[in-house]
């Protein structure tokens, strides 16, 4: 009976191919692999290394295109960039290169003195339009001779977007790795771009740490316009924080967090789609001079409306109404020394309880979002065992996954209990964030490998059984 149930579950999964198209899994940066059912609190202790792939130089956080019908067949693609301006597409089922592309870049003048935070820049994760919460079931075939997808209006899964070190945006044919259109100058050369985000045919990027000699800014490029006009919005004198750049609401508004405004305040800005005009903002009251890394805000649904969660440099958490940001819906006491790291994750459990997970210097903290007089409040439920250098958490089917200095960890999403640690399976510290799709977990390490974890018994193509 158990075998039959497992078979049915596996079958249901196979009918749909999930994507992990962008860091945090979605434009909202909720870090929720919503359709993933392979991992459970019971079985996750049996996670195994499925394979690893050595990149030429430092690889970015990998992304997953669940299914693409290419001239080479049906492929689930694992895509990432490396710090040498190359992009890779692997057959995620087989750990086999499909293509490797190298972006020919404009010569970039290297400044005589490179600021500390701008050395050894990490490659920008490749991004696609779409969301990990949107599953694809493309079983029907298009009409023969149907017109190809227009280049300038990418459909979901239609293109990969990459930024090379010269600041050019590349629209990449996912089948071949070739540029589908001439690359466009998007951000300044040698910028430190945390992540791209895509919504309604507009690509957004956040630049950090003043790299490339320019102030931290949000950038937007409207792909539906023929003007190729790039819009920039500086961070009002502050610096943009978080590993995932920006979060985008269902209405297309872009939310990014900056710190050290006005000599120490944190702020969350709401920017209008395409124009990046400041529509609203939230400014913390406390000025902080000892600045932590900061985290990208997350947007989630609560009681039928979108809510933004953001963290202050003083370790407070804020819940914001995107339509009225000046006054927070909720403000916690300082609960994480040094503030929050990277990005958050949020999901709604089977009992319809909303959870928020945050990484800090101490580890991961789990909060429940509760109703208090019609307003959301955060209740701390658990704190994980000590996890140094915790990545942005990712939640899948009741299990929170997080990378830390000790490798890959799996935590019970309700209690924070450690369910799994990769131990010696990983030979180098992890770098960047996680991607989860279609029964597999991916991440990069500092020795330039991309790792894939899962259950070998579910991978007949790897075992030959």
């Amino acid at each position, binding site marked *: 009976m158990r075998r039959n149930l497992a078979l049915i579950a*596996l*079958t249901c999964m196979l009918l749909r191919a999930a994507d992990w198209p962008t860091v945090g899994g979605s434009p909202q940066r909720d870090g929720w692999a919503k359709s993933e059912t392979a991992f459970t609190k019971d079985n996750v202790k049996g996670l195994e290394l499925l394979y690893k792939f050595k990149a030429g130089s430092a690889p970015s956080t990998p992304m997953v295109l669940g299914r693409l019908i290419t001239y080479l067949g*049906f492929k689930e693609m694992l895509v990432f960039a490396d710090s040498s301006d190359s992009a890779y597409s692997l057959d995620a089922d087989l750990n086999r290169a499909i293509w490797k592309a190298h972006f020919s870049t404009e010569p970039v003048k290297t400044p005589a003195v490179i600021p500390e935070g701008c050395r050894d820049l990490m490659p920008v994760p490749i991004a696609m339009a779409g969301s990990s919460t949107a599953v694809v079931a493309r079983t029907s075939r298009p009409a*023969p*001779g149907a017109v*190809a997808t227009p280049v300038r209006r990418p459909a979901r899964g239609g293109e990969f977007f990459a930024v090379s070190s010269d600041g050019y945006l590349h629209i990449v044919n996912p089948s071949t790795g070739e540029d589908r259109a001439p690359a466009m100058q998007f951000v300044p050369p040698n910028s430190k771009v945390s992540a791209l985000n895509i919504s309604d045919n507009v690509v957004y990027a956040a630049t950090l740490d003043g790299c490339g000699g320019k102030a931290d800014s949000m950038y937007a490029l409207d792909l539906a316009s023929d003007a190729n006009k790039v819009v920039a919005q500086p961070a009002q004198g502050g610096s943009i924080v978080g590993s995932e750049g920006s979060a985008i609401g269902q209405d297309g508004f872009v939310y990014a967090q900056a710190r050290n405004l006005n000599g120490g305040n944190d702020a969350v800005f709401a920017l209008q789609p395409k124009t990046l005009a400041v529509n609203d903002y939230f400014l913390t009251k406390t000025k902080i001079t000892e600045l932590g890394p900061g985290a990208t805000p997350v947007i989630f649904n609560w009681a039928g409306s979108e809510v933004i969660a953001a963290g202050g440099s003083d370790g407070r958490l804020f819940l914001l109404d995107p339509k009225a940001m000046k006054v927070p819906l909720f403000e916690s006491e300082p609960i994480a020394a040094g503030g929050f790291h990277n990005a958050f994750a949020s999901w709604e459990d089977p009992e319809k309880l909303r959870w928020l997970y945050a990484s800090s210097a101490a580890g991961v903290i789990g909060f429940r979002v509760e109703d208090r007089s019609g307003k959301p409040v955060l209740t701390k439920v658990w704190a994980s065992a000590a996890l140094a250098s915790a990545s942005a958490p990712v939640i899948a089917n009741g299990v929170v996954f997080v990378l830390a200095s000790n490798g890959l960890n799996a935590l019970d999403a309700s209690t924070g209990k450690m369910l799994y640690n990769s131990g010696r399976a990983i030979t180098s510290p992890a770098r960047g964030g996680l991607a989860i799709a279609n029964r597999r977990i991916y991440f990069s390490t500092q020795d330039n490998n991309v790792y894939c974890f899962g259950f070998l018994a579910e991978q*007949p193509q790897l075992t030959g*059984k």
Partner: protein
Amino acid sequence: MRKLVFITFLCSAAWSADWPTDGGNPQRTAWQKDEHVLNKDNVKGLQILWKLKFDSPPREMHSLFAPLILEQVKTSGGVKQIAIEAGIADNLYAIDVEAGKVLWQKHFEYPPVKEGRGLRPGDPLCPGGMTGTPVIGPPGANGARTVYAMAGDGQLHSLNVADGEDVAPPFKFGFGNGKSYSLNLVNHILYTSTSQGCNGNPNQMWAVKLDDPQHKVMTANPKSGGMWGRSGVAIDSNGVAWGPTGDGRYEKETQTYGNGLIGAKVEGDELKIVDYFIPSNWTWLQKRDLDFQVTPTIFTYKGRELLATASKECRVYLMDVKNAGGDDHQTPLDRTPLICNEEVNFASAGIWGSMANWADARGTQWVLTPFWGPVHSNFKVPVSYGPVKNGAVVAFKVEDKGGKPQLTPAWMSRDMNRAEPPVIANGVVYSYGNGENTEQAYADRGLDDSSPLRIKNSTHAVLYALDAETGKELYSSGDQISTFSHFGAISVANGRVYMTTFDSTLYCFGLPGK
């Protein structure tokens, strides 16, 4: 002298060979046991004896199907050897093969098909029209032979092979424009299968008792993407019809048997699924669209009736028809390593169509499969003939290992441009590279399976004759065939090798003067 002529005639009669159905027989062995004219020594002298271009236009990529051959048919003009040729445009031709001339022809007229959801122009998967190779029944009481052909409207026609006249009123058997595959006939029960949901058809196995006055249509539905074994179903000695189920999923509880094989038998007035096999990696096959879709070939080996079949993944499976997949329906007697399709492509690679088997004079049992695309870099075969980039035929010996029959690779042929199902006759294997453009997806736009595009990019078929024991090339037709062949097949009988092409041409190869 007169006595000598008489003896010669008797020998000739004794040697007479028919090819009454796709694959030669209900078991789809594709083994012409009665060929005595062509052999390993003389086959190099093959020539085109004649070719006939019919006024039967192709639809999408389809044109003509496997020719059927009867050696001795009493006609008003005397006893003739007749080939029956079916065209997708609902045409049926009878050809006097000695003269290379049409004896009679029939066009099945019907009003536009209204059932179903219609066809999409340019779709090579669903051409509409008569898609199933007809089948010729056994001699009747008067010795007459009947050819059964299903027109594009799903009506089954029964015609006298001698003159093309109806011997029974047509009746509805299949789904209009539903893409029925080659008909098969055993014990007065006619079978076909349908696939790809063409025109909204149900993808299933179909059967009808020809002697049932009501002609009740019986079906067995595996709930899959389509039973598209090129030669339809293969039937074992117990009357179980075996058909691959194509794309789909496996769910035992709901009797969903995608990406596998079903065996169905007529019991009373129902066609019941009595056994099935699902490969252990069916989820992988489904994910990569590597359909289990090859018509099995059935044979007896050391007292056991076995079948061999395959999929686009490019493995061959060996099973016992009494218990196809063991107790769990997922354990074959043997499963070969990957022969090809290292790229894991759903098009232009893998095993397509049907298979073949034969036993040599020493009793060695052979199983043959064609494949498309490059050979797998890990596939080891003792005898081969140069790099294989586009396809080839592989022969296996069936041998006992550890008390179980196993498939041992014996030889791999020369490179063929999309090798098609082989036929074995008198120690010679005939196969052809179909010359067809098989691409269904493109780098710039993804999936675009378009007949006009594929036709434009196709080349021409090449017929090959190979030594059946070594795979050595004995003959190649070179550039003599003008166009490609999509879903065609070879037929061999009485010193002649037949095949068809897209330009509605039937080729007859043989030895002049023989």
